[in-house]
């Protein structure tokens, strides 16, 4: 199997961390991964995006023109990159910040998740990226949630390991938002 | 019978290619004597520059790396960092060190690289045929300043020994000349001191040696020597511009306060 993901938001939303987390999770599952980051001009507040490819065999191109799976965390990235999703693909939208009314993509499966609200209900709006990662993992089946839990230990610096349980709650909440 | 004068063992028994009246041979000898005195020949790595001094390996009986034009201080940095036990010196002319190699010399000095730099200043580009150098005196005619160097157009000659003395990494900076026997004796003393500083791991040591170029200057060897005493020393005063001998890094976290202008050599005064 081969999974690809394009995730975009603004700097500070943790897009790159989420991409890293999913990549590590896949690595733990003995899969091959490429993680290609891109920044806007400013590291914080500018655009942040990444492309992740997970494959059992060779990854091939780390650059994906029309990803089959896209996650949009803010309005700007949705407007700028909404057209990227491959025909018949899947888009996960952070409906707390993105208004997609009037989007003419009837071919897509669009999943709207109020990620900021979920994160805030769990006590920290900064966990939006974890909600997104959980939602992607659950819908795509690219990575198991257990692998993400293990991956958090590698992705987070040691001093932040105390936040792993809270992050796992956010990941599971994101996953739960997928399965009705 | 006691032999009182002999060729330093660090110097090869060959004739130099230098023009009659050129001071390179004399300065080579002083450097070789210092090498002998400290017994560092077997661990010396010389860095040759581009100019008349490029044939360093032809005269010094030591291992030599040839640097691109102006880059001797950077090459020496690489050599010394890779082989900290070696004794590393560069030998550079004024075009090489004070024009195309200005960045390299300033930063090697500022880092306090544990190397010794012999800077030979004859106020011209000798090997390329006597063009204007950064050290050419105002009014001096060269093949590229046929009307004489103009301050307004070409700036003024750079005093490297003074300039480098201001940098924190420099342990020793002095200007010497070999135009008279008295100056030559002084030069010998300062070169040895510069060597000793590296041997003792004190940091960057710098010797600016005023020199002649009778060929480019269009004068006889004797006239060239006279010009050093008459014109060069007037603009480029001899002396020590920095000496950290008495500086105790334990008691003083910062570099010693520099005194303005040249300090006279301790034992000789120069009125030529």
């Amino acid at each position, binding site marked *: 199997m081969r999974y690809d993901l394009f995730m975009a938001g603004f700097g500070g939303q943790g897009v790159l961390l989420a991409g890293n987390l999913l990549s590590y999770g896949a690595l733990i599952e003995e899969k091959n991964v490429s993680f290609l980051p891109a920044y806007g001009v400013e590291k914080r507040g500018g655009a942040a995006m990444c492309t992740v490819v997970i494959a059992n065999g060779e990854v091939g191109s780390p650059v994906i023109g029309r990803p089959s799976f896209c996650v949009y965390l803010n309005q700007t990235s949705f407007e700028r990159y909404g057209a990227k999703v491959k025909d018949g693909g899947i888009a996960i939208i952070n409906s707390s910040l993105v208004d997609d009314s009037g989007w003419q993509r009837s071919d897509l499966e669009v999943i709207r998740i109020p990620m900021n609200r979920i994160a805030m209900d769990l006590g920290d709006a900064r966990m939006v990226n974890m909600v997104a990662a959980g939602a992607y993992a659950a819908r795509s089946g690219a990575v198991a949630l257990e692998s993400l839990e293990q991956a958090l230990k590698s992705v987070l610096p040691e001093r932040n390991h105390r936040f792993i349980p809270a992050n796992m709650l956010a990941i599971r909440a994101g996953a739960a938002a997928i399965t009705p | 019978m006691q032999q009182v004068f002999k060729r330093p063992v660090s110097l090869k028994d060959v004739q130099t290619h230098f023009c009659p009246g050129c001071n390179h041979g004399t300065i080579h000898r002083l450097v070789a004597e210092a090498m002998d005195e400290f017994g560092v020949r077997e661990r010396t790595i010389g860095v040759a520059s581009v100019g008349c001094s490029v044939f360093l390996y032809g005269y010094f009986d030591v291992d030599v*790396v040839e640097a691109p034009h102006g880059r001797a201080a950077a090459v020496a940095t690489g050599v010394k960092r890779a082989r900290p036990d070696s004794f590393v010196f560069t030998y550079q002319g004024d075009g090489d060190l004070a024009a195309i190699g200005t960045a390299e010399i300033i930063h090697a000095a500022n880092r306090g690289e544990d190397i010794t730099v012999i800077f030979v200043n004859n106020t011209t580009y000798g090997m390329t045929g006597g063009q204007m150098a950064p050290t050419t005196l105002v009014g001096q005619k060269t093949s590229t300043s046929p009307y004489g160097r103009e301050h307004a157009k070409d700036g003024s000659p750079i005093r490297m020994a003074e300039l480098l003395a201001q940098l924190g990494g420099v342990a020793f900076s002095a200007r010497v000349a070999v135009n008279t026997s008295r100056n030559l004796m002084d030069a010998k003393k300062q070169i040895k001191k510069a060597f000793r500083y590296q041997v003792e791991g004190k940091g960057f040591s710098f010797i600016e040696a005023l020199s002649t170029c009778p060929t480019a200057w269009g004068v006889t060897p004797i006239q060239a020597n006279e010009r050093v005493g008459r014109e060069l020393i007037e603009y480029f005063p001899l002396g020590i511009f920095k000496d950290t001998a008495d500086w105790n890094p334990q008691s003083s976290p910062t570099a010693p306060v520099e005194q303005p202008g040249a300090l006279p050599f301790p034992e000789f005064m120069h009125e030529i």
Partner: protein
Amino acid sequence: MSQRLFVKGNEAVAMAAIEAGCRYYFGYPITPQSDIPEYLSRELPKLNGEFIQAESEVAAINMLLGASATGVRAMTSSSSPGISLKQEGISYMAGSELPGVIVNISRSGPGLGGIDASQADYWQSVKGGGHGGYHIVVLAPASIQEMYDLTMLAFDLADIYRTPVMVLADSVVGQMKEALLPNPRPVTTLPEKGWAVRGRKEGTPQMIVKSLFLGDGELEAHNWKLHGKYDVMREKECRQELFLTDDAELIITAFGSVARIAKTAILMAREAGMKVGLLRPITLFPFPAQAFKEVTGRCKKILDIELNNGQMVEDVRLSVARDAEVFFYGRPPGAGSLPVPEELFEQIIKHY
């Protein structure tokens, strides 16, 4: 088996340098390669090595020259504008037959250009970027594993042939993260560095590292010697990847990051029933001319894809069988010009 790590390409280069025994690094900051000096500034002091942030690219390459002249393994890294500045030193190192590793995580130009991925330094890298008519070995990794493996190989080739070796990549391979198996340094028989300057001990000959040869015929002989080495490299050191070329009716050739994108396009073509393969040069100098000759003995159509306006394609044209057709598709580098697999697939359809 050692554990797979997940690292950036730039970090893989730095890790490989340390594994290869390199303890001396000299560099100047420039995007997008600063992870390399950052990593080595942290790690080399722990290994009694030396890291110097030089005052300029020119100084950095000359510090490399000096360190290398003493026989140690040393490296520098930069990106395109910085590599232009280093060309003086590279020419001197080539002339003085000094080993040394130079990493170019290239960016778009000319001039200040931009920081986006670029393959526009191909000519500068393989044709002798400085004066005097020399070559250096140029290796073009396309994955994080190759960033690691080829950097280690670079040190060996540098020592074996007494030549500067360049690792030429771009920000895709430099900034991307992938799994890395940090293989131990391969066992290689390396020549003694008897030529190095270490101080002339009594009874040993004087060592001189130089590129100046003024005697009648000396420089010509030296140049013949250098070019003799290049011929040996052409014979022994060509490396390439062949992917699905056996039955191919169209062969794509590309190097580095673009070859990765092309590979996915090739798989799209295969799914559509088109017999397309890939010939990816791994050594850009020596150029794997023989491999091109062989594949075009059977497959008569080659499509060269580059992130520039057409540079490697000149070497491809010189290498293919006489009756082969060579097509070119390139995008000059800059923001947004990195081609995607779908775009290359269209090119495949066009030329198939």
